[in-house]
């Protein structure tokens, strides 16, 4: 596609359920990032992928959060046993390179609401 695609755009779930959020990066982009944005707040870094490996997972808030990337393309962010404090917009971004001078291209995000 022309841009970064995220699905679903909205997800409502019950506390304790597991959810999967998907990100389709721009074709050929090797770097992929996940961020979280709570209402009225800035962006919180979660995890970064270079290819299929995740050199930096330091932003994942707890062991309920995990992410993977396959084929150097699609990435899935999984949240197990969701809690109300997990409610936020989850943003994915991709980049053709990583490092100095990097430019990120963001999707429109997945709005997650945990009831």
């Amino acid at each position, binding site marked *: 596609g022309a841009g*970064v695609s995220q699905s679903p755009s909205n997800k409502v779930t019950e506390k304790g359920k597991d959810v999967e959020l998907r990100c389709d990066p721009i074709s050929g982009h090797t770097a992929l*990032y996940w*961020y979280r944005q709570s209402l009225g*707040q*800035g*962006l919180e*870094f979660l995890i*970064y992928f*270079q290819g299929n490996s995740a*050199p*930096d997972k*330091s*932003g994942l808030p707890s062991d309920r959060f995990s992410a993977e990337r396959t084929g150097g393309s699609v990435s899935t962010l999984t949240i197990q046993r969701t809690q109300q404090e997990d409610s936020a917009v989850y*943003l994915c*971004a991709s980049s053709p390179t*990583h*490092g*100095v*001078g*990097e*430019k*990120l*291209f*963001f*999707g*429109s*995000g997945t709005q997650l609401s945990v009831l």
Partner: protein
Amino acid sequence: LAKTTQPISMDSYEGQEVNITCSHNNIATNDYITWYQQFPSQGPRFIIQGYKTKVTNEVASLFIPADRKSSTLSLPRVSLSDTAVYYCLARSYGNKLVFGAGTILRVKS
């Protein structure tokens, strides 16, 4: 980490030039300064990037002094559609690209 500091919010009127200054006192030698714009219900969008001196594109200008401890995003003749949150980033050591709180720009008619 190359922490950035920006004003929390700014107000302007249509047609005015807006300058948003960001401080990054401990910027590393290799760090680029990058600005993003975010509208409600959208992901951030790249605006402009620079290393030193001045960079201009069709949207904005970026001024970076010789010591690189600050940078100024300049938006010429803003319109209502420029109302958004503006983020200044300086790449930190390692892999993280850290976003600060950003500056809320409100353009009034």
